[in-house]
């Protein structure tokens, strides 16, 4: 079995500079600082991103959004993509 991604144990949040615009397929995320546009292609991913700020960990947010554990790796990958463009930020990074 693969090792769990360390991100699952970290605490993350949606950046204050980001607005999420609801769309029929999910949402459009816009970063007012770096002016990047990103698309959240699934409503479930929007739910996860929205849950990040009030969850202890990423794993907690995935659970809250009702994502089956088997799909977690795909969601972690999507979250890493959002992190790369500063859409989501780690809270209290060590």
């Amino acid at each position, binding site marked *: 079995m693969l090792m769990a991604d360390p991100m699952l144990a970290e605490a993350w949040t949606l950046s204050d500079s980001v607005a999420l615009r609801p769309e*029929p397929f999910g949402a459009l995320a816009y970063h007012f600082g770096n002016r990047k546009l990103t698309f959240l292609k699934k409503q479930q991913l929007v739910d996860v991103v929205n849950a990040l700020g009030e969850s202890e960990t990423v794993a907690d947010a995935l659970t809250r959004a009702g994502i089956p554990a088997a799909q977690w790796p795909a969601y972690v990958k999507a979250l890493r993509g959002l992190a790369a463009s500063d859409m989501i930020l780690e809270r209290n990074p060590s």
Partner: protein
Amino acid sequence: MTLLDVRTPVARPTTGPLVNQFEFGLDAPICLTWELTYACNLACAHCLSSSGKRDPRELTTEQCEAVIDELQRMQVFYVNIGGGEPTIRPDFWHLLQYAVDHNVGVKFSTNGVRLNPERAAFLASTDYVDVQISLDGATAEVNDYVRGPGSYDTAITALQNLQAAGFKDAKISVVVTRQNVTQLDEFKALADQYGATLRLTRLRPSGRGADVWDELHPLPEQQRVLYDWLMANGDNVLTGDSFFHLAAFGESLPGLNLCGAGRVVCLIDPIGDVYACPFAIHDNFLAGNLLADGGFKQVWQTSELFQELRSPQTSGACTSCQFFDSCRGGCMAAKFFTGLPLDGPDPECVQGYGESALAGDRTIPAASQDHSRTTPGRNQPVMLSLTRRPEFDAGAIEAPPVSACAENPLAGFRL
């Protein structure tokens, strides 16, 4: 596969690439162009909006503010402002500030006429504003041929002022033509010199562009040069996704390889008319008016035209082409304004189907609006170049013709 094959699925998919979502439209546009005025100090030969004179019905300052308020409510995060020449509207700088204060970022296109050192300093002090200077030649000769005398110097002065004021990353916006496609490296060098980013876009046969398209659009072999250049340099160059018809050469260029008209893109014109795209200012692509039809959101979300553009389209004559999935038939406006059917090939189809379509029966549609000045101004381009008659160069003519009443004793004398 039959001739009636429909390539677009009939209902919004729940998985798959994002581009399939875009075909069904978004709740608000992601690329909105707003032309603030039809007035312009220049009279470019290929102007998309046939600009020149202000329209007396243009939105007032208060009406423009109301549009910005609505864009903020719709979460349209930025708007591309153009014209005409937007900066000659007296309330331009006010509206710019108003938009930024309401979380609507602005990228505006200008020929540079108002970008003096003071304005450049103001722009450098703002966040969330992008400036795009139009330049259609890397030399004055090539630029002024289509944009008019003095326009190269105006643009360069504006770039110098922006750089001197510390404005970062202005854009130099170039419409690629037969005359300037050989200057791509020079444009890049100019952009580097002014700390700017180069943006290349496609010449459309829209507005006054319809009159000069035959002479200005890149030749088939030049399209290949452009494609190769974009493949080599594309990462550092913006294109507004306008060259997706070139994708049929092979590999897709970066960006959205799809016509976004009415789906993710639209245009608000100076009198509040909403069109499917900035290159389609024509009654056939008019979705409504934001003053008469209940606001921009109402037009965007409910207009019949936009509903139609977001519903499955047939691929017509392109159905049997193996490259259809790359180019998706090309640009709607380019087809329309050259009198080609919308479900057939793009007039600049790189597989050569455009040329045969252009050679067939077609009627170029009459313009729906024209704000060109009726008397030529001093900035009007004169698209003439000095040449000699080809017969002369071929040696078929050795001397000027002699008329029957030539009195000069040396008339007709040959050495």
